[in-house]
C-alpha cells in the first residue's frame, strides 16, 4: 500500500481549499446548488490524500504576541459585519446571498435589473463564508479571516525554514509580519475589514514559498486559488508562472501553469455569465475555457524563450511584446474587468502621464508609511541594496525579487491607466491594500537576506534571546 505523502499544514489547507473551490465552481457552472457539507468533505478529502505534518510549536513569547495581536481583529470580525466599505457592501453581501441561495439561482446573481455592484467579483472568499454560515453563523464564519492571517504567517515561517534560516530569525520575522499595523488596525485591508486582500496576501506568500523552494505543491495550489480570490489574483498567478520560468524554477513553473490554467478555465466562463446575467454570451464559453487554459502556458513559453534569449534578446523581446499586446487587446473584450479596461486604456495611449510624478510620489509615500506598514518595505529595500553589494548574498532571494519586481509592474500599469477622476481614490484607498498583499513576500525576502547578511533581528540587550536558537 502506498504511503500518503507528508505535507505541511499550509499546503494541506490549500489542498482542501482547492478541492472545495474546484467542485464549487464546477457545480456553479453547471447551475447546481452547493451542499452544505462540501467544505467539510473537502477538508476530509485533503486529509485522506496527504499525511499532515504539523509545524513545530512556536516559542511562548511569539505565541503570546501573535495571540494578543490577533484577538482584537478576531473579536472585531465576529462582533459585527465588516465595518469597512467594500467588506460590507461587496464581499460580505455576496456571501450573504450565496448562503441564502447556496448557488447562483437567485435574482441577485441572475437578474441584470437587480442592483449588485460586486456581482462579478471572484467567489472564493464569499463561498467559504457562505459554507460556514449554516454551521457557525455569519459572525462565526468570519473567524476564517484569522485563519488567512495565520496561513500568511505560517507560509513565511515555512519559506524561511525551508531555506535553512535559523529559528531566531524566523520567529522575529514572523512577529514583524504579524504585527504589521495595516493588518491589525481597524482600517481598510485589516484582518476584520472583510476585504479579500488578506486572502490574496496569504496565497501570494504561499506562492513565494513555491518559487523560493521550487516546491510544485505550494506554487500549483496557490496559482489555482489566486484567480478565484480577487480580480488581480489572475494577474498574480500569471506573474508567478513568469517569475518561476524566468528564474529557472521549472517544477514550480509547470505546476503553477497547470493550477492557473484550470482556475482560469473555470472562472472566466462563470465570470462572463455573472457580468451579464440573462444576456447571450458575447464570447462562446468554450472559447473562454480555451483562452483561460492557454494563457498560463503561453506565459510559461515566453519565460522559457526569454531565459534562453541571450543571443537574440530583441527578437524574442519583440515576440513577447507582441504576445502581451495581443493578450491586452483580447482581455478587455473577453472580460471587461477593471484590469482589462485599464490595459485597453493603456493600449490606446490614454495614459495619465501627467500624473506619473504624483503616482510615483504617492507610491513611495505609501511604502514608507510607518503607521500602515511599519518599516516593512523600507527595511526590505535596505537589505536588498546591502545584499546587492555583497557577492552571492542575493542568490537565494533572487526569485522572490523577480516575483515582486514583475508583480509590481501591473500595479504601476493599473495606476497609470486610471482615469483622472478615479486616480485619487485608487491612490488613497487601493494602493495600500495592493501593497499589503505583498507583505508576506517582502518579509520572506527580508528574512532570507538578513540571514545571509548576518543581521541580528533583535540586537537589543533585553530580552536576551527572544525565541532562543
Amino acid at each position, binding site marked *: 500500500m502506498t504511503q500518503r505523502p507528508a505535507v505541511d499544514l499550509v499546503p494541506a489547507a490549500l489542498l482542501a481549499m482547492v478541492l472545495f473551490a474546484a467542485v464549487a465552481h464546477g457545480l456553479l457552472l453547471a447551475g447546481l446548488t452547493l451542499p452544505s457539507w462540501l467544505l467539510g468533505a473537502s477538508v476530509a478529502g485533503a486529509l485522506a490524500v496527504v499525511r499532515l505534518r504539523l509545524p513545530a510549536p512556536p516559542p511562548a513569547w511569539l505565541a503570546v504576541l501573535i495571540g494578543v495581536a490577533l484577538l482584537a481583529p478576531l473579536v472585531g470580525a465576529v*462582533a459585527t459585519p465588516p465595518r469597512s466599505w467594500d467588506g460590507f457592501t461587496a464581499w460580505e453581501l455576496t456571501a450573504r446571498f450565496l448562503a441564502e441561495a447556496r448557488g447562483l439561482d437567485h435574482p441577485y446573481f441572475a437578474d441584470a435589473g437587480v*442592483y449588485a455592484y460586486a456581482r462579478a467579483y471572484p467567489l472564493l472568499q464569499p463561498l467559504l463564508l457562505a459554507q460556514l454560515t449554516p454551521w457557525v453563523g455569519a459572525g462565526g464564519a468570519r473567524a476564517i479571516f484569522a485563519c488567512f492571517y495565520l496561513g500568511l504567517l505560517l507560509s513565511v515561517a515555512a519559506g524561511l525554514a525551508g531555506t535553512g534560516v535559523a529559528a531566531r530569525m524566523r520567529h522575529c520575522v514572523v512577529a514583524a509580519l504579524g504585527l504589521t499595523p495595516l493588518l491589525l488596525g481597524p482600517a481598510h485591508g485589516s484582518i476584520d475589514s472583510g476585504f479579500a486582500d488578506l486572502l490574496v496576501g496569504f496565497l501570494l506568500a504561499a506562492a513565494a514559498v513555491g518559487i523560493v523552494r521550487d516546491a510544485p505543491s505550494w506554487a500549483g495550489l496557490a496559482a489555482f486559488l489566486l484567480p478565484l480570490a480577487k480580480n488581480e489574483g489572475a494577474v498574480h498567478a500569471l506573474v508567478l508562472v513568469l517569475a518561476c520560468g524566468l528564474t529557472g524554477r521549472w517544477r514550480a513553473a509547470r505546476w503553477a501553469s497547470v493550477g492557473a490554467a484550470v482556475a482560469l478555465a473555470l472562472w472566466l466562463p462563470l465570470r462572463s455569465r455573472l457580468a451579464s446575467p440573462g444576456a447571450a454570451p458575447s464570447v462562446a464559453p468554450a472559447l473562454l475555457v480555451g483562452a483561460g487554459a492557454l494563457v498560463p502556458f503561453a506565459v510559461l513559453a515566453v519565460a522559457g524563450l526569454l531565459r534562453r534569449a541571450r543571443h537574440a534578446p530583441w527578437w524574442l523581446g519583440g515576440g513577447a511584446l507582441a504576445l502581451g499586446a495581443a493578450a491586452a487587446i483580447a482581455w478587455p473584450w473577453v472580460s471587461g474587468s477593471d484590469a482589462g479596461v485599464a490595459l485597453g486604456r493603456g493600449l490606446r495611449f490614454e495614459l495619465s502621464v501627467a500624473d506619473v510624478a504624483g503616482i510615483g510620489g504617492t507610491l513611495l509615500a505609501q511604502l514608507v508609511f510607518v503607521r500602515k506598514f511599519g*518599516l516593512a518595505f523600507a527595511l526590505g529595500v535596505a537589505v536588498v541594496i546591502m545584499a546587492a553589494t555583497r557577492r552571492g548574498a542575493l542568490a537565494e532571494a533572487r526569485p522572490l525579487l523577480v516575483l515582486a519586481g514583475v508583480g509590481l509592474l501591473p500595479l504601476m500599469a493599473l495606476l497609470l491607466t486610471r482615469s483622472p477622476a478615479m486616480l485619487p481614490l485608487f491612490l488613497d484607498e487601493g494602493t495600500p491594500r495592493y501593497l499589503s498583499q505583498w507583505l508576506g513576500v517582502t518579509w520572506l525576502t527580508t528574512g532570507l537576506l538578513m540571514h545571509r547578511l548576518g*543581521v541580528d533581528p533583535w*540586537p537589543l540587550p533585553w530580552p536576551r534571546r527572544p525565541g532562543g*536558537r
Partner: protein
Amino acid sequence: MTSPGAAPGLATRPGWPVRVAAFACAAHLLFCAARLPHAVYGKRIGEITDWSELGAAAYHLQMAGAESRRVLEWLAQELPPGQVLLWNGDSRGYLQVAAAVLAPRLLVWDRAVAPMASIAAGRPIFRGRAPWHQQVPVDAVPVLVGRTPAAAGLELTYR
C-alpha cells in the same frame, strides 16, 4: 551581533549598515507592538461600539448627511422581507451601502421595470410613503436615488 545562521564569510564583523538594519528590525517590532493598545484595541472597540449604537445605516452614512440617513433608516424599517425597492441615479457611492443594509431585500433598477408593473425580479414592488412626504399618495412607489456626485448621498423620489 551576527545571526546564528549567517552565511560563512559574510558576517564575521558586522559593519554599520548591518547594525542599522538590525536596529531597524527591532524598531519595527517595538513600534508595531506599542501600537497594539490604542490603534488595535482602542480604535476597534470604538468602532464596534459605534456600530452597535448607530446601526449599519447610520454608521456607514456618517458623511452622507442627515437626509440620506433618514431615508435609509426608514426603508430598513418599512421595506418588508420579500419585496423589492426601485433605485435610480448614480450606482456608485451610497447605493452600495443601501443594498447591503437592506439585504436580503433587493434593489431593482427603475428603468428595467415597466411603468405600471407591480412585480420585479419575481417579487412585489414596495409601495409606501415616507412620513415626511405627506403630499405623496400613500400607495406611491418609492425610488431610492443615488445622487450625483456619488458622495452627495441618497434621496427618495416616487414614480
